[in-house]
């Protein structure tokens, strides 16, 4: 019973992917694409070393082969169906001129700006067949372009350094890392298309039961990304990831014109784990019923007071307000707000809170985590990084772009074309966990002590956005889908409100966590930033925050439709 005991005590159960070491003896599995990239890299690196005015010290090729299947239906009819299509291949060449200390990717300050992780890179589509001659011809051209641009950029960097004041952060431009070799099997996206076309169509019919729903949809997408990386340092990576997402969405309009939208989604790693019909039906019915409630709900008034962010909404909240601000490169770029740059070793949240970003875990409980990977997109092994320990900021999410006191990557360099420090699986843990009914009581107590009539519960939140740049307000905005007022007067029932926008400043929100629930849950999604879209996850318990500020969302002005839905029009003049 030892196991059972352990389980009761454990906060979460993660299954750790037993990733193989740095070098795998599996030459056989190397794809034609990888081998071809390696050959052309070796040739160009040798030849181009002699060509420029400044030294070429690093080159890499990073290619993504992606394949997708999409099916969508609306109101009982298919709106998108898979047809003959082939995987796409896209390659980015990175060229570094100068030295690790100073190279062409160095930020250029002042008018015009420029530089950064994406200079000295060029991208191209590649042939989709394994034809080395054709592939090398494409790579050759993009390499030539990237090399010329990098040479020009490096000249600019040197001049810029001479005319501007000393930088605050004088760390290197590129970290020294050990090369990695890691080869896995490539994957394909599989789906029983006919089965799912029928299923999706049939499920989308369910929305026809609700006359107040104005747009709705059920969709399924499956995608595989095969990634290939070779560098002049000897790194050679071939990896693969696959995700499926089933998505249900619906919109309605309140009588005053406010648009309302809800969605639900299921994320899995393989076809067999896709939800069954009754799970999807339940999600549809829930959305439809909640939309009904929402369209009759009171419009929110601006409010500042205590609130509970329920697990998945808390996870989005942490991803947006915290995760993006601890990405390493943002600590160096002088155009960034650098909220946490000088907070290392300082307390930024209560003692009972800790946060890690751990790309090496594949699952949370039974659910897959999308932010899993073994090697990052610069070929550095993924690492579990403890960012906050007992409330104290300890680390940043680092790519190979060093910042002051952090000279090395910690395996978080990610992107579609070039890489910067990005999140993988952001995992929020707490030692002050209480059951949910108790957290609710604490919310009411807190509202009372602040003299408020009610507190708020944020049940679900759609993807938010956050602004990290200087000169922009250092705030975040997340769009809550369902928000409930919980009255201090316990004889009053909870009340759904609509039109809520969260506003506020990030640091303040973090410091004000009072307690957390014991209901950890994961949010899987795709995160877009300067280096492209990448799959990510965040895991969090519900959190009770002392003060959260909300405003009323700007509302659309147009009224609900004038005529009833055709299916519900009793007065049909048209011929049937």
């Amino acid at each position, binding site marked *: 019973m030892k196991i059972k005991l352990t389980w009761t005590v454990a906060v979460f159960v993660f299954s750790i992917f037993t990733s193989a070491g740095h070098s795998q003896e599996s030459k056989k599995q190397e794809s034609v694409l990888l081998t071809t990239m390696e050959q052309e890299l070796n040739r*160009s690196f040798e030849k181009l070393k002699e060509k420029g005015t400044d030294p070429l010290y690093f080159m890499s090729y990073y290619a993504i082969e992606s394949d997708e299947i999409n099916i969508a*239906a609306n109101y*009982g*009819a*298919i709106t998108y169906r898979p047809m*003959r299509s082939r995987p796409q291949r896209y390659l980015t060449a990175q060229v570094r001129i100068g030295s690790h200390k100073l190279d062409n990717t160095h930020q250029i300050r002042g008018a015009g700006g420029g530089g950064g992780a994406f200079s000295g890179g060029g991208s191209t589509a590649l042939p989709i067949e394994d034809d080395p*001659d054709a592939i090398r011809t494409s790579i050759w051209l993009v390499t030539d372009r990237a090399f010329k641009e990098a040479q020009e950029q490096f000249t600019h960097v040197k001049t810029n350094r001479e005319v501007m004041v000393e930088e605050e952060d004088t760390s290197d431009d590129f970290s020294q890392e050990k090369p990695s070799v890691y080869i896995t099997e490539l994957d394909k996206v599989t789906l029983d298309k006919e089965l799912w076309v029928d299923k999706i169509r049939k499920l989308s019919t369910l929305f026809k039961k609700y006359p107040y729903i104005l747009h709705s949809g059920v969709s399924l997408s499956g995608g595989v990304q095969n990634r290939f990386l070779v560098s002049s340092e000897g790194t050679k990576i071939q990896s693969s990831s696959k995700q499926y997402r089933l998505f249900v969405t619906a919109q309605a309009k309140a009588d005053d014109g406010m648009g309302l939208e809800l969605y639900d989604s299921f994320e899995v790693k393989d076809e067999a784990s896709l939800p069954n019909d009754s799970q999807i039906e339940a999600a549809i019915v829930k959305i439809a019923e909640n939309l009904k409630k929402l369209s009759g709900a009171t419009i929110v008034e601006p409010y500042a007071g205590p609130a509970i962010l329920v697990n998945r909404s808390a996870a989005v909240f942490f991803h947006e307000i915290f995760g993006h601000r601890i990405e390493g490169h943002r600590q160096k770029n002088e155009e960034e707000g650098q909220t946490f740059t000088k907070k290392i070793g300082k307390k930024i949240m209560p003692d009972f809170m800790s946060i890690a970003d751990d790309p090496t875990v594949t699952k949370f409980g039974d659910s897959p985590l999308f932010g899993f990977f073994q090697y990052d997109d610069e070929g550095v092994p993924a690492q579990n990084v403890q960012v906050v320990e007992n409330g104290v900021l300890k680390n940043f999410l680092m790519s190979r772009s060093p910042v002051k006191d952090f000279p090395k990557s910690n395996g978080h360099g990610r992107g579609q074309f070039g890489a910067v420090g990005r999140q993988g699986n952001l995992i929020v843990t707490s030692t002050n966990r209480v059951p949910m009914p108790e957290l609710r009581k604490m919310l009411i107590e807190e509202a009372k002590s602040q003299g408020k009539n009610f507190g708020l519960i944020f049940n679900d939140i759609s993807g938010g956005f956050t602004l990290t740049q200087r000169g922009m307000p250092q705030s975040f905005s997340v769009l809550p889908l369902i928000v409930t007022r919980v009255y201090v007067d316990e004889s009053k029932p909870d009340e759904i409100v609509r039109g809520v926008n969260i506003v506020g400043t990030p640091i303040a929100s973090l410091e004000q966590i009072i307690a957390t629930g014991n209901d950890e849950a994961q949010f899987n999604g795709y995160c877009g930033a300067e280096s492209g879209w990448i799959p990510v996850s965040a895991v969090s318990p519900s959190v009770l925050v002392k003060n959260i500020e909300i405003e009323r969302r700007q509302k659309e002005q147009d009224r609900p439709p004038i005529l009833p839905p055709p299916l519900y029009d009793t007065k049909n003049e048209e011929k049937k």
Partner: protein
Amino acid sequence: MKNRKWGQTPFILCLGFVIFLGSFLYAQNTEEKDTMLNALQDELARSSARLKLEKFDLPYYIAYRVDDFTTYTASASFGALTGEGEARSRSLDTDVRVGSYVLDSSGYGGGYGSGIPLDDDYDAFRYAIWLATDRDYKAALDTLARKKAYLETQKMEERPDDFSKEDAVVLLQPLKKFTFAKDRWKELAKKTSAIFKQYPDINQSGAAFSAAYSNRYLVNSENFKERITDNAFMYFTAEAQTQSEDGMPLGDVFTYFAYTEEQMPKDDEILSATTRLADKVVALCKAPKAEDYRGPVLFEGNAAGEFFASALAYNLISKRPEEAEYGINMNAKLGKVIMPKFINCYDDPTQFEFNGKPLMGSYTVDDDGVKGQRVDLIQEGKPITLYMSRVPTKEIKKTNGHSQRGRGGPANLFVESSDKMPMAELKKKLLEEADAEGLEYALLAKKLGGYGSGSGQINIPAPIELYRVYVKDGKEELIRGGSFEGGSLRTLRDIIATGDDTTVYNSFRGRGAGISIICPSILIKELDLKKPPQKFEKPPLTKNPYFEVKEIK
């Protein structure tokens, strides 16, 4: 009719999209069983009768158009596929107007497209049409109010109406199956692109095949009812680009368009055209650079077609007074001489081929649903009418079946001459003109569309294939670079002679509309060519790995 909305520039090396397939042919061939047509008409009837906010009027005009496209594209480079894809989409365009024919809600933006399902499902169609109509009606009310307010602030003499009244067109073409040998074209694209593996001087190259097929439905509150299914077309294209030793970018492309597979050239013809293309680009690399020039220029064959497409076709669109302030105002030139007396022009979208060659500007009905018509545009050098849609202009009030997305536009423009001379004589005349100017050589353009663009009131595309023809011995010498400068409406009057040849030039431009120019070679008395710039980016620093490896062997 061609599908006006679909197109994109025909050369696309790495991408693509195209068309096709028979799989979306429904069983219903009759009107009664056409789910789409029924849904469109039923929602049209309901909205026309009852879509009204209190205090406001019903729409006076509602039109729905559905375009159902299937596309197929295969592209290849250096012998390997770079893309292959097939896609199908259906889009719904709604036009809901409030006000009246005299003054309505049109012309201030709006006109949204919406998605509509691929399955033939009556309920889902009605639902999509209902929501789009509702959205557009509300937007139209808002637009009309803003438009009226604006017009009150303007002093305007005689404002043309906003929309012309037209007789209903009812035309239901049968649904038909469109098929082609996908694998043949895919393999040919690969094979064609592999030809460039014999050309170390060419840096970038590719070939692509694309086909598109569409069914279009159009219904409106004036009882127009159309199902147009003669919309298939395809093309095959190959392209080569490189840089000369001094860095000048050079390249050429060919494209064969057709409505059917039978009209497409044979494989051998495409392969030999590709070899010619590659040889020409290599020859260009080695050719001398163009110098500044002022004097006579002979536009032969394709180059004459390209000249008229750029200099004439799009200047024959009738404009409303508020548009006439920009660009060339041909409305003011009606009845006045703009070309030599021996030139007559007409446009005929109803002619689908000429001397066995497909004309890509053809259509049965235009974008307003009005039947395509032959229109005489220029007689003895004077414009007598212009391209019209249902949007009236001051001088011309009615459509002539040339609507492209609601505005007049060219289709198949025939340029005819009553003063033709054999080509040998035309070249002789070119040299005489040059000699009279004391020039050592004259210029002969065989193809336009190169890098760089000229300047002037009318833009003549830069030459791709340009020759010096020496006065002393008539010898032709290929040159590279250069751009035509200072083209103006006046340039059209400088056409002093035409050949007895006729070229069909097909192209897809602006808004994806196909266009054909059917014209003779022309001699222009005086035109400026500007020499190419002095500085270019360096050619690649290393060799293409494929040719390097071959050398080592």
